């Protein structure tokens, strides 16, 4: 069983979480649709350490994890407000 540390609920089985995509700046609501297409569909998807959105499904809590996507090691998890200011 793989464990992820939810910043709100503590360590939980990975099956309780859903992946939410790479962390990247959100375009302004009135930004051109090209920018929104980039934001929604295009991903860095590179090997190495990435920051990603994750959801703890039972509590609907979104947070940010730093994960090595080559080794599947979760390095750290953060409350969103710790990262996005």
């Amino acid at each position: 069983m793989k464990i992820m540390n939810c910043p709100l609920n503590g360590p939980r089985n990975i099956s309780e979480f859903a992946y939410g995509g790479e962390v990247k700046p959100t375009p302004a609501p009135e930004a051109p649709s090209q920018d929104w297409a980039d934001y929604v569909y295009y991903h860095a998807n590179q090997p190495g350490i990435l920051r990603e959105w994750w959801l703890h499904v039972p509590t609907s809590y979104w947070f940010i994890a730093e994960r090595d996507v080559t080794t599947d090691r979760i390095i750290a998890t953060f409350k969103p407000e710790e990262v996005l200011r």
Partner: protein
Amino acid sequence: MPLALIKHALGLSRPKRQLPAQKELRSNYDVVIVGGGGHGLAAAYYLAKDWGVTNVAVLEKSWLGGGNTARNTAIVRSNYITPEGVRFYKESMGLFETLSQDLDFNVMYTKRGHLTLAHTDAAMRTMRWRAEVNKHMGVQSELVDDQDVARIEPALNMSRDVRWPILGALHHPVGATARHDAVAWGYAQRAAEMGVEIHQGTEVTGFELSGGKIVSVQTTRGKVGCGKVLQAVAGMSSKVAGMAGVTLPIRTIPLQACVSQPLKPFLDTIIVSGSLHCYIWQSQRGECVMGGAVDPYPLQAPRSTLDFKEGLMAHMLELIPGLADAPLMRQWAGLADMTPDFSPVMGKTSLENHYIDAGWGTWGFKATPVCGKRMAECVATEKVPDILSAFRFDRFKTFDQVGEAGAASVGS
């Protein structure tokens, strides 16, 4: 049957399995193909055969067909859901039909019939939809009820006393399998005979760009100039495109599979259940080849997990209870390039001489011949063939998706 087989049987020739000895890299090639898997080798073959382009180097970081070509589960079908997808895979099956003869290399193409099971009314509606689209595009495909399913594949458990009883299926009588390694080897040999250079153990480490073009390719064995670059590196697509400054609509997600120990032949058809996320067919050696959905989140390395096997077997044993005592022999994973619309990405990128063949989530092997043929055409003529135009890499910028999730079956 390939002529070489008959000759060999009569003792007139011995099969040649070797490629020409690897030469030094030349300083310049008309076309550099990054990736020596099925797709890259097929493209090299058709470039030489159809277009007379033989000043071609295929660069492979490890060995021929050793990446995702060796990791798929060898199923060939064309019963997709979008007209663009059905048309594309129909052409691929046509090429597969005669591939052994064309290459004079036995790729063990075997028609078995293919059943996509439906366990819910919603799934039955989707199968009906697919059958109608398929028939409209000239592909053999029909919706059948549970009694037909029992007749077509007697090995299936048709009991109503299970969590997900089988209500019917999409029957695709021309569904087939082929030996995936042989497809890569066959293309490699014939391409090499026509002058294509295949360089194994040669990793691409970067591209040199100038004026919106790639002018040279850096490798672990030195730098080569290039007229055009075709990248066909499923699983590493984002990494390689990233070296050229191109961002792709792709997430790399492991796709796991496994085989049982060899059993006596009991299963004729290829069985897929999109609702239960599992599929199975029995190989010529008697092993049951089984797979399921992709992993729940992206990962850039192939690895196998117990979770996957538990989830897969829970459903598999409902379909074929007799498998409960069959030990698993091998397990592995490949890397799937998942696009948001479950369709591939092919054609030119934003760079003038950079061509891409990517986005092969869970459907890459069956596209090998058509993709090789049409990508070769695209590279040689610098025009995107009609059959590829729907799959252009910037289609997401204009919200022109080709939604194939309904027919990727076990895609996610």
